[in-house]
């Protein structure tokens, strides 16, 4: 398997030029329809270059509809990179004649992505640079983007409502959040490219730089066109603060730092909208946890960890209450001995 892949990748990278050697092929992650591989390419001059392959293997090219698709992801990465967003450089695209499926090869960046480590300290420069990167993403010209899902605040609420209803579990706290979101939904806005999963965990960071530095924005498969404040709200969800709730921006920064970077790169932050999207994002992660538990219950994905994640939906219930019905000091919970 790895040998076939290495030979195919060597053909992709060599093209009509001098032969490139491919080695150290290692699967990083992925399900049945999408894979991520790390490997090294050695040029004729002997220099090794660490690279990443993102691909849907042959036969799985068109699964996971609704997402951007790997060709779309590559196109967005190129546009974002040209606009000054730190992203991995796209090195080559797979073509049908390569027989490797659909996807692309990109530069492998070196840095930290583990949320807990990134959130372990206050990193003002990282938060500022996240603001800059987001403003640049949101300013990309829509007419040059690949075809993308389009949405607006109210449509997202109805989408979540339907998704939650499909799971069949009664959750009063989720209904309270849905009601609040519907009652406070901001008006439709001038659409922009939204990354869709811009959060601590999807950011390649340099933790040695003073104040941290953003090296690469990863995982673009949920990119869509909608309200740009959605990205800022998602980044501030408590789920991505990794226990450092005192620092709202990914556990590593503060709104003021994020907004300053956003403003300095030409964007206009709207704190009320950001907060609305933070509530929606908290509910969204809750519904995703719930759907993983449901995937186990229904037998669709008989994977032990899915059942465990189902019992994490309550984390989002407490975060939603903390946002919508905050209480300064809580009494001890009801219940017997633990």
């Amino acid at each position, binding site marked *: 398997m790895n040998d076939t892949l290495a030979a195919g990748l060597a053909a992709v990278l060599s093209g009509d030029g001098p032969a490139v050697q491919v080695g150290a092929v290692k699967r990083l992650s992925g399900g049945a329809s999408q894979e991520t591989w790390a490997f090294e390419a050695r040029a004729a001059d002997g220099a090794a270059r660490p690279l990443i392959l993102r691909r849907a293997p042959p036969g799985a090219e068109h699964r996971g509809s609704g997402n951007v698709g790997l060709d779309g992801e590559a196109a967005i990465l190129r546009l974002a990179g040209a606009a000054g967003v730190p992203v991995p450089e796209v090195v080559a695209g797979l073509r049908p004649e390569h027989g490797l499926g659909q996807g692309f090869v990109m530069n492998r960046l070196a840095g930290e992505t583990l949320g807990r480590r990134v959130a372990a300290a206050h990193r003002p420069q990282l938060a500022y640079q996240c603001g800059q990167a987001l403003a640049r993403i949101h300013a990309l010209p829509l007419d040059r983007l690949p075809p993308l899902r389009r949405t607006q605040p109210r449509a997202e609420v109805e989408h979540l409502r339907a998704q939650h209803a499909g799971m069949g579990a*009664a*959750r*009063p*706290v*989720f*209904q*309270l959040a*849905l*009601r609040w979101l519907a009652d406070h939904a901001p008006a439709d806005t001038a659409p922009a490219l939204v990354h869709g999963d811009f959060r601590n965990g999807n950011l390649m960071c340099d933790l040695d730089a003073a104040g941290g530095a953003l090296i690469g924005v990863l995982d673009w498969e949920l990119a869509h066109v909608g309200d740009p404040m959605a990205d800022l709200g998602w980044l501030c969800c*408590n789920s991505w*603060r990794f*226990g*450092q*709730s005192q620092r709202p921006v990914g556990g590593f920064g503060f709104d003021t730092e994020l907004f300053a970077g956003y403003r300095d790169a030409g964007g206009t932050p709207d704190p009320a909208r950001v907060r609305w999207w933070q509530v929606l994002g908290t509910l969204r992660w809750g519904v995703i946890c719930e759907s993983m538990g449901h995937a186990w219950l229904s037998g669709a994905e008989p994977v*032990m*960890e899915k*059942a*465990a994640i189902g*019992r*994490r939906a*309550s*984390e989002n*219930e*407490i*975060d939603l*209450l*903390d946002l*919508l*019905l905050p*209480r300064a*000091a*809580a009494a*001890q*919970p*009801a*219940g*017997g*001995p*633990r």
Partner: protein
Amino acid sequence: MQDAPHPHQLLEAVVRYLRDDALPALTRHGEGALAYQARVAANMLDIARRELLAAPVDEPAERARLQALVGTADDPPGGADLAALNRRLAEAIAAGRVGTDTPGLAEHLWATTLAKLAVDQPGYETYRRLTGA
């Protein structure tokens, strides 16, 4: 009646085996993925263990609060069942008949959610911050 060790104690014994024996052994043998699964398995059994202990106290209390919020004269003498009451409250909130200004709602949702976290995820930061746990 069954004899001791009781269900929560049997679970406790398995949790200890997974954490103290299986997990380190798997790690020593370079089975990182299996070690991770063992950790997840131990956490899941711990949820079940805590639920076994807490449910006899939590569930009647939750049911009494729900009955006060959304109970009707047609309910059986002991009150409707917990799942039905939760469905009723969810529907009432969705329809706007019950909201944040309804007396008792905030207290009920907080008590219920804190009781859930105490079983599901007692290590979650928001829970620890709000309860001083």
